[in-house]
């Protein structure tokens, strides 16, 4: 019988990999961004609707290297076990296996599960689920290429809202989301993967600009209250910018249809 209470050390031992000073400090300056943006600028964003023909609604979003696609199916009859008088919004968030530095498995890992949940929480306040009794709306977000995990989540929310609007599902407002990175006291909008490496915290805000309501907020890192509030304001402004692009994209779809017909 082995002694279970004792904590046994590993059998092998190794020479330290790190010599003193090998972790040389590389100073990172968020004010000098590689892509030449100011700290209060988001990446230029491109959106398009109707990219998945099979889906009831779909959207594609590109910001820098970040590429996200979303398809919306439904409303359709809810599975028997979970009937309710309100509609159900199902969200599914998935990174493609090749989207990031490390290959991702096809099975959803816990980060993807969490993002699926955040996606639902961010979108549900905007969707008029009370008009869809006994029905389910499915939202599938696929990240084709990621560049900054917080920015990815924000892009996913924006893209999903666009796809929901494209599917003709009744919504209170088009939800827009954006991310910031904290670098000590500097707040930097829409950080890339590389910048994220040096950040001390991040925040993702999703917001309904016309109704002036925040639908979701998620922050990590140790941040002072005043800095947080400043970041919230910054995000709110950026979301309004993103929404105007969303509106243009949606309007363009209709114009195209009218002119085409």
């Amino acid at each position, binding site marked *: 019988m082995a002694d279970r*209470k*004792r*904590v*046994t*050390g*590993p059998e092998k*031992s*190794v*020479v*330290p*990999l*790190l010599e003193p000073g090998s*972790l040389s400090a590389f100073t990172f300056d968020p004010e000098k961004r590689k892509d030449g943006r100011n700290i209060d600028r988001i990446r230029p964003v491109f959106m398009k609707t109707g990219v998945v023909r099979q889906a009831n609604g779909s959207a594609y979003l590109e910001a820098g290297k970040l590429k996200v696609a979303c398809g919306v199916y439904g409303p359709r009859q809810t599975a028997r076990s*979970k009937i309710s008088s309100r509609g159900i919004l199902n969200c599914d968030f998935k990174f493609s296996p090749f989207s990031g*530095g*490390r*290959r*991702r*498995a096809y*099975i959803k*890992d*816990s*980060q993807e*599960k*969490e993002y699926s*949940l955040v996606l639902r*929480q961010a979108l*549900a*306040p*905007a969707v008029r689920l009370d008009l869809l009794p006994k029905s389910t709306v499915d939202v599938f977000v696929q990240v084709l290429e990621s560049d900054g*995990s917080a920015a990815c989540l924000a892009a996913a929310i924006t893209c999903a809202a666009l796809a929901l609007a494209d599917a003709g599902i009744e919504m209170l407002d088009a939800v827009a989301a954006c991310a910031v990175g904290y670098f000590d006291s500097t707040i930097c909008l829409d950080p890339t*993967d590389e910048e*994220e*490496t040096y950040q*001390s*915290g991040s*925040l993702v805000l999703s*917001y*309904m600009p016309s*109704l*002036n*309501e*925040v*639908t*979701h*907020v*998620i*922050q*990590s*890192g*140790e*941040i*002072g*209250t005043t800095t*947080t*509030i400043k970041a*919230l*304001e910054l995000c*709110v402004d950026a979301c309004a910018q993103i929404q105007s692009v969303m509106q243009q994209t949606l309007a363009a779809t209709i114009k195209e249809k009218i002119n085409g017909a």
Partner: protein
Amino acid sequence: MISVSERDYITKGVDVSIRADGRSRLDFRELVLETGMITQASGSCRVTLDGGTDILVGVKVEVGSIEPEVEAEEADILEDMEQMDQDDGITMVKDKDRGRIICNVECSPSATRIFEPRDIEDMCNEYSQFMNRVLNGSHGGVDLKALCIIPGSTCWILNIDVLVLDYGGNLLDAIFMATRGALHNTRIPRATVEQSDGRVEFDIADEETEIIRGWEDVPLCVSLNKIGYRHIVDAAPLEELCSSARLTVAVNRRGNLCALQKGGHGGIEPSLLAEMVQTAKQIGQTLLKRQDAALREEEERIAAGKDPIGFGAASRH
């Protein structure tokens, strides 16, 4: 499910700052805190909120390698948590001199009838993720560098397992309180590193133990529920059902925010959000003081060699 009249009753009560159990909007429930009753664990704590919520947290320390070897193809559920750490791979590269914290929240099936098993699973996953995000990092408080045994190869891994024994609302706040208590109570065996012939070896002395460095910087959570146009702290289950949105704020003793997360299905105006953050910060500070006092009492009790009250604690009210 909650009826319209019940919802109306609670909402109107909240509006005039009178709640069903007699508290005002920003009152926290009575809490009972106890540490060290699970002797097999490296540290343990149980937090009971008056009126139901009952959380037990056990901390187990183990020696592990700094970079977990994960085969992505064989990603099974057990490796999920370790994979999570891998996901932060970018940070791991420069973190070769740090230990890790792995959190897991489990809900005892007997805890509540309100939720469906699937919802419970979702909720546990959400909370586990939240804890992992808060605790693993410089803002989490725990000195991860102190958990390192041999840089680049071996470190201590803190496994924090949270068990929800009973659900009476405001789980997340209670979970963080219990986690902080358990970390205060945790003792790690002393590891001494020796260098001989260019090889590094280490020895673990079971008798000598160390406390976890930085436990006092571990943040506490304050969840504010928005009901009507007002917000309340420490919601009871019925109040949680009426709430349109929840904001969870993690605050440490320096008064900084360590995490911010919104839940629920309603929206919050940005100005109210800012106000809620401020409120949460103040309440968090008082909670921290309250808990520190309770922990000091516990310490004295343990030093005096008195037995814990154990699982009778909840029934003494």
